[in-house]
């Protein structure tokens, strides 16, 4: 349990959060035109990251890093193809570009950042990949909700406001929203760090007074 918490906390560090936002920029921007597309893309990303990590991490026992990476990226591409085929076949996402989004995801910075390490246990690699996938989902779904609301005045296809700002549906707007998210992460991290420093300082003062 302690290890699980440790992995979750390390995934919530400023560097990891920002690299997840930057690494997933292409996928996030293209897949966040509406909440439904974001949800299904996030599910595919989550499956892609965890499955590839689970299959590739144990291979360090029998092959070198290059072999592990080859298996990892091939599996990511295979999951991407399966997701694109299923989503297109069942018409789950009304988007012509889902295949392109999935192909881009398989070679994105997000996938690259989660290549299993040689000193990493399989469970650790899988858990860390799942947390990364969940972070991507959180960012993608919230950006998608904002964009759908602003562009069409709907959420999950239901009208909630009479707003129409077509530019919100453009990829450029998605990039700017991701930039705003990254800035928010920066600000929150600065505040958290300042609060921690304040707490440490107070504890030191209390210790000095006690002495």
């Amino acid at each position, binding site marked *: 349990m302690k290890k699980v918490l440790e992995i979750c906390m390390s995934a919530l560090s400023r560097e990891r959060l*920002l*690299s997840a*936002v*930057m*690494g*997933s*920029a*292409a996928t996030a*921007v*293209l897949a966040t035109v509406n909440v439904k597309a974001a949800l299904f893309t996030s599910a595919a990303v989550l499956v892609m990251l965890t499955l590839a990590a689970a299959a590739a991490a144990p291979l360090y026992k029998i092959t070198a890093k290059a072999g592990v990476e080859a298996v990892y*990226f*091939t599996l*990511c*591409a*295979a999951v*991407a*193809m399966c997701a*694109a*085929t299923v989503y*297109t076949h069942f018409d789950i996402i009304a988007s012509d570009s889902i*295949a*392109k989004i*999935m*192909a*881009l*995801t*398989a*070679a*994105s*910075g*997000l*996938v*690259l950042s989660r290549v299993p390490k040689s000193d990493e246990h399989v469970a650790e690699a899988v858990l860390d990949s799942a947390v990364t996938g969940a972070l991507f989902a959180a960012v993608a779904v919230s950006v998608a909700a904002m964009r759908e609301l602003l562009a069409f005045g709907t959420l999950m296809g239901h009208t909630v406001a009479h707003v129409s*700002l*077509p*530019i919100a*549906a*453009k*990829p*450029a*707007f*998605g*990039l*700017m*929203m*991701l*930039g*705003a998210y*990254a*800035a928010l992460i*920066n*600000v929150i991290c*600065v505040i958290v760090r300042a609060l921690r420093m304040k707490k440490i300082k107070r504890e030191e003062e209390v210790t000095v007074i006690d002495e």
Partner: protein
Amino acid sequence: MSELFSLIFTAIIAENAVFVSMCGVDRLRDFSDSPRHAALSGAFLTLVSSISVSLLWVLMTVIKADAAVYGVLAAPIISVAVSVGAVALIKKALPALYRGLKPYLTALTVNSAAVGIVYAAVGFDIGLTESVVFAALSSLGTMFAYLVFAVIWDGIPASRQAAAIRGIPTVLLAAGLIAMVFSGFSGMRI
């Protein structure tokens, strides 16, 4: 002649791979730290995507597969394999260039820009020559985008950026603004 210019304009500006199609936008920070690196990365991308498109086109034609479906699987695998091969070749033939590219090797070999360009070029259902020309021009468009960004990035020292938007937020906000310029501010209402 006018058709050629139209093709060049479309691939580099109107349908720019980075700022319009969003391929490789996640690598903007990696390759744009200086104009030299942006140019080197763009040249490498042009080489890799041209070779990858030819290989993928031949493969899809030989096995008569639907490029729109199987391209999702094949484009990343082929472009990564070609990149790794190109890096090995550069290491042997041009050690000086290899040393220059070394810090960016991982980002170069697994590059969503190459995958996006390769997938798009094969998905158009056009001939081999046209696909390769399209991929090469799109890669030059990517190089242009990295160069534009590198020049802008050079002019904004980190010390002059507000703490909240220092680093990745600035990259994304600037990329968003440039992308908006490329899309001609369409969809905007004032």
